[in-house]
């Protein structure tokens, strides 16, 4: 069992909005172990992307972290000053976003961009050496050397996404937070990307937090999975355990509503209702208005997030 690399304890993020204070992340605790792929799934607006941004302290104001701690490689990230955090970001901790087009500088050639990133964190490295390093890396990622001097708009979507990974790997980061990395990609390119990610993870010993709404790619790639609903984590388990026997009613409903191309006679089950308003969430368990197995207790008491079976965590009164 490898050691924990990232430990999030009781993290909460709030946004002031016109309608009131919105709690996008509410008391989330999560650990990422070295070398694993931790999947973080949920529907839109459940808070998963906000959580990812919070880990890198990239939240856009007025959103801010209001409580909790984030421990990374023994450091308390929330206590670091902005400059110190910047050094951590990029060198040890990195993010891959959904739409690489908006993350790459359209006016900068990709090799220049990589060289600049490398030299920002390793000022002693000479330009030539940095360029070689970048070139070798992109080559490993399948981007031919002729394309090194291209601008982002000259590359295809899949290649841009690979450049993003290249930027993350250029500095030998320990942890990559990938926020919907394949949503903008075609399905075959997505498959190629996942293959590559798997290879790179093994080769570089990366730890990846994979944030997505796509249950399929979580099943493909993740070792452990956390399911998020309405700003809270409702279930956490090994991937085979979760898919084999989901505990939380939301996870159960979610998995039953996901299409499976291999099966020929299945039906998609529909979960009634919609995710709740995060400004005024329901009392007790947030899922209770939609839960097919709701009990009286669920309506008034918030279930704790506990390890109800070895290696299986969930927040549900059915298991307490």
């Amino acid at each position, binding site marked *: 069992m490898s050691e924990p690399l990232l430990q999030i304890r009781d993290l909460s993020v709030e946004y002031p909005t016109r309608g009131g204070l919105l709690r996008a992340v509410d008391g989330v605790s999560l650990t990422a172990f070295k070398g694993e792929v931790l999947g973080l799934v949920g*529907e*839109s607006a459940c808070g998963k992307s906000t959580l990812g941004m919070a880990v890198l302290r990239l939240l856009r104001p007025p959103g801010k972290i209001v409580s909790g701690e984030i421990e990374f490689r023994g450091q308390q990230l929330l206590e670091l000053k902005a400059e110190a955090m910047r050094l951590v970001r990029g060198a040890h901790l990195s993010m891959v976003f959904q739409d690489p087009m908006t993350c790459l500088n359209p006016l900068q050639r990709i090799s220049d961009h990589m060289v600049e990133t490398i030299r920002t964190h390793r000022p002693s490295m000479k330009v030539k050496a940095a360029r070689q390093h970048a070139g070798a890396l992109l080559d490993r990622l399948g981007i031919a050397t002729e394309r090194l001097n291209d601008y982002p708009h000259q590359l*295809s*979507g*899949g*290649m841009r996404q690979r450049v993003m990974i290249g930027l993350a790997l250029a500095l030998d980061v320990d942890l990559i937070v990938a926020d919907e990395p394949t949503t903008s990609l*075609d*399905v*075959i*390119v*997505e*498959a*190629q990307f*996942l*293959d590559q990610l798997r290879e790179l993870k093994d080769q570089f010993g990366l730890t990846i937090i994979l944030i997505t*709404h*796509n*249950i*399929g*790619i*979580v*099943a*493909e790639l*993740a070792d452990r999975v956390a399911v998020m609903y309405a700003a809270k984590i409702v279930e956490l388990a090994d*991937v*085979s355990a979760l*898919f084999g026997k989901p505990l939380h009613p939301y996870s159960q409903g*979610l*998995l039953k*509503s*996901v*299409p*499976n*191309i*291999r099966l*020929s006679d299945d039906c*998609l*089950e*529909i*979960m009634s209702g*919609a995710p709740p308003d995060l400004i005024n969430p329901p009392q007790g368990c947030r899922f209770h208005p939609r839960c097919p197995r709701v009990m009286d207790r669920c309506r008034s008491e918030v279930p704790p997030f506990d390890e109800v079976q070895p290696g299986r965590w969930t927040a549900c009164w059915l298991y307490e």
Partner: protein
Amino acid sequence: MEALNLVQVLDLKKWFPVQKGFIERLVTRERQFVHAVDGISFEIKRGEVFGLAGESGSGKTTTGRLILRLVEPTQGSILFDQVDLARLSGEEMRRMRRRMQIIFQDPFASLNPRMKIGEAIGHSLEIFGMAHGEEKRGRVVEMMERVGLEPAALLYDAYSHQLSGGQRQRAVIARALMLNPDLVVADEPIAMADVSVRALLLDLMNELKRALDLTYLFITHDLATAKYICDRIGIMYLGKLAEVGELQKVYGHPFHPYTQALLAAVPVPDPRQRRTQPMPPGEIPSPINPPSGCRFHPRCPIAGPICSQEEPALRELRQGHTVACHYADRFVA
């Protein structure tokens, strides 16, 4: 006697001219085109759901627009109930639109932000002079209830920005069905909806098809969801059809290497069934200069010498199951 085929597309092509800068235009002689749709033929049978699937650049969206003549074809004919749409005048085509409607991918963008939802849905009734005032409102409310937009009387007066994503898509569906068309082109109708809402919308579309006797052209990039609604499916690649057949047969025994790769690439929500099959290398080439011969040949695992020279035609390998591949026979059991 009604014809079996509601729609018949013959050698349909759409080439978009590439916009060039002023200097470029002076320097280069020939014009370049985006071969969005490059010669496809298929039929849509009355009452079926015909899926048109493919990745980006496959031409599926353009095909949907062409069938409705929202985009003018460069070549080829589109027979709708045996009438060649390309031959109709502007006004005749406008009147023909009563019988063919479209559900767009982006419900927010396809609804006029300044129009009340009820007005937007019922606008076609006004356009064709079929109902006005109270009667129109009544019929719209009825349709809104039918698609699950409730409370209909209240939502009639709402504007699109006040509805949720799922509600908007229902409104778009209602709008398309107001005139009880024969054909509905659904252009990625659930792609922008939340995962949990998609199943609902698919169910709705299925039910409406039964109730109103509709024929769908279902355009999608999501092969997994296509399974739940399509009867037959056509796989497009770079402007051409690779494989066409009954969905269960195509998914069960795909003959075209591209279809095989596509189906294998779809992530399965089951960690015990992780993909082992390798993916074809590279990405979809530019439709401005498509590869010679079979478009897939540069990436195809079974490509042979003939593939770069001769374009394979769609030929029937099994009943109702056609493939455009020179070497597909080897997959026939």
